[in-house]
């Protein structure tokens, strides 16, 4: 973070390089759509930059950049969802449906076959609190303490969101495994 205090723009590029993967992964797995994840990541980093413009050296030095960036990302995500509810998107019909992940299908299929799960799709079925906590812990690799900072809630709450989320995911997995070839997913809850 020292670079940020000296030359904001050069430091910002370093900050972006160091944290773009964790911010993008979190965005992708929390919102579930690749294009939205790009928008959210770009917007989060831009807001971070604008905040940094107003911070003095001490404040910048004291930042925990990863937790701070993810806090901004989740705020951007919640706001974008709120405004999407206020003015629902019209005319998406002529657009091709957004793929959840345009990466090489081979890689992805191998991954799916390996685990036997459509994990990304199942994550989307978790309640928001659990999904965010599970993504931060197991996709993005944050510690419980960091997640507690990001979500500004006690560590105990974080742990319970995670364990409930994982329990639910396991249940969804086995439900899906039973119906394996079918696309129908009736999930009792």
């Amino acid at each position, binding site marked *: 973070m020292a670079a940020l205090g000296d030359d904001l723009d050069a430091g910002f*590029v370093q900050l972006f390089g160091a944290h773009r993967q964790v911010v993008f992964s979190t965005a992708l797995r929390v919102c579930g759509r690749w294009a939205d994840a*790009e928008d959210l*990541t770009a917007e989060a980093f*831009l807001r971070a*930059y604008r905040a940094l413009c107003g911070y003095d050296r001490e404040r910048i030095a004291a930042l925990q950049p990863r937790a701070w960036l993810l806090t901004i990302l989740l705020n951007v995500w919640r706001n974008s969802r709120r405004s999407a509810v206020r003015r629902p998107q019209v005319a998406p019909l002529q657009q091709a449906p957004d793929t959840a992940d345009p990466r090489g299908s081979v890689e992805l299929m191998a991954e799916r076959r390996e*685990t036997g799960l459509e*994990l990304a799709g199942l994550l989307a079925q978790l309640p928001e609190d659990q999904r965010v906590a599970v993504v931060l812990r197991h996709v*993005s690799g944050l510690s419980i303490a960091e997640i507690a900072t990001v979500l500004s809630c006690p560590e105990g709450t974080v742990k319970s969101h995670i364990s409930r989320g994982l329990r639910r995911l396991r249940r969804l997995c086995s439900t899906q495994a039973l119906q394996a070839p079918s696309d129908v997913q009736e999930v009792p809850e």
Partner: protein
Amino acid sequence: MSPDRDALITGLAALAADAPEGLLDRVVARWISVAGPMGPLYVAFTDHGVAYVRIGQAVGDSAEAFAASFRERFARPLLTADRPPAGLLPALRAGRATDLRFDLRGLTAFEQAVLGAALTIPKGEMRPYSWIAHQVGRPRAVRAVGSALGRNPVPVLVPCHRVVRSDGETGDYVFGPNAKRHLLDTEGVNLSLVDELARRGVHYLASDTTGVVCYPTCPNARRITPAHRHGFRTVEQAARAGYRPCLHCRPVPAAGA
């Protein structure tokens, strides 16, 4: 394997994805200095297009001063660019940027429409503020047109220097009236003729061979031989004398006339 490192946990960890290449350029802008009509031209652009332009003179020929004024106005990181954005150099050479992409996200719809109208004025020609007001469908908003052009973030490329007062004065400019006259002069506008006509109260020129009335800087007006050239104070007077507006420069009544 610990109970934690089961298939589900491994699967979740594999869901991490690296940010796509090019995502940085959705956050930062880039800048470059190119040769412009008045010495170096500082140009900042984003993934949406050209966002900010300053002539060297306006920033004391200092990249730092340009970057500082960009950041103050846009609050976005600014990095150097390896090469100019596509279309910039051809646009500068031709004095025509209608095919160039601009990032005007910070502007109102009215301001964007005003700049869009100014963009269509050909090199070497001038139009009054009232003409722009007509083009954007707000014929009475002449003053608002003036302020919108005064806030033009991409001057030179969006040629607000080609927009002048109806009374023939060149009027204000982001980089000052002298820079405006200099730019017009470089483009081949015969300013002394325009000044001289204005002193005589002539703001439109008509040809009795074609029956057409034009702004004095229109190519069709420049071709009129002195014997067939008639000057008018207003386009209405020309119309009463039987002249129809030129289809190239499309003269409109001056505001309040």
